[in-house]
């Protein structure tokens, strides 16, 4: 009887915890940062506002939640036989918006943490651009790297 009483006491407390937090915080990658075709020796910049080539991630969470956003950025893309292409991310290469319209982004530096507030629908988008710098002697082939976005709700 003691064990049953303890189990019953846990449920309402855990439900209260879920209601107070709102929907779970989720991040989902939606579009690659696509430099597409590069010519050896010719740098290529992708603006964060480029609709087809800029990277895009979606954030879902509690309405009006204040979030801490942090990128883990690669220094280079890796290709055939270990060849690399340097990547540069400038101070305005990332953006956040509560709508999916790239033109309404607020720009920020992807190399530093950024504080954003989700709108009332709990839905936000992060965009990222950057510059690839292939060398004159860059070997031909496909190159790639991983760009990670970490989102935290420090209000927990």
């Amino acid at each position, binding site marked *: 009887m*003691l064990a049953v009483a*303890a189990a019953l*006491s*846990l449920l309402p*407390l*855990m439900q*209260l*915890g*879920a209601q107070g*937090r709102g929907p*779970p*915080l*989720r*991040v*989902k*990658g*939606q*579009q*690659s*940062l*696509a*430099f597409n*075709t*590069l*010519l*050896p*020796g*010719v740098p*290529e910049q992708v603006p964060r506002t480029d609709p087809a080539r800029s*990277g*895009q*991630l979606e954030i879902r969470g509690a309405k009006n939640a204040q979030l801490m956003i942090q990128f883990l950025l690669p220094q280079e*893309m890796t290709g055939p036989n270990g060849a690399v*292409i340097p*990547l540069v991310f400038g101070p305005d290469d990332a953006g956040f918006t509560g709508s999916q319209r790239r033109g309404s982004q607020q720009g920020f530096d992807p190399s530093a943490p950024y504080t954003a507030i989700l709108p009332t629908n709990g839905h936000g988008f992060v965009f*990222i651009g*950057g510059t*690839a710098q*292939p060398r*004159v*002697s*860059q*070997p*031909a*082939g*496909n*190159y*790639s*790297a*991983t*760009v*990670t*976005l*970490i*989102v*935290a*709700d*420090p*209000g*927990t």
Partner: protein
Amino acid sequence: MRTFCKAALALALVAGFATATAQAQNSDFITARATVLTPLAVVGDADLDFGNVFPGVPATVAVTDPTAGHFSVTGADNAGVDITFALPTDLVFAANLLPIAGWTGVHNTTNSAAGGTAFIPSAAVQVSRLSTGATPGELYVFVGATVSPVATQPAGVYTAPVTMTVVYNGT
């Protein structure tokens, strides 16, 4: 019983907070990707050869002459390129100088000066484009000039390098 219930309540509170903390951070990733096309290759195929030159008699090699200078370029299909030259002002034999000037050039996507685009080789950029279609990624450059030996030009074999540089221009 009171002690047991207090312990259960404390455990429940810890579990609740632990669940909330696990929901307050998330991460995902995207891929940065690119495809690098064929690097440019430039080969000097044939020297600009004036042959035997007589003192006091200028000699010219036209771009259409068989002894015109010749470069072959290979790279990406239909890619735009910038061409520049580093040109000598004299051919050299020991301490003797043979002036050279009047540079002429033709660039063409087929290996013939006929039908190509005429230009003046220099350090200034000459824009061109590699071939596309059945034989993509090719460009040929022909170079001519005029040497002007003085009447007292010492006999000998005079030479100097003619350097052509080609880079992708992103077009």
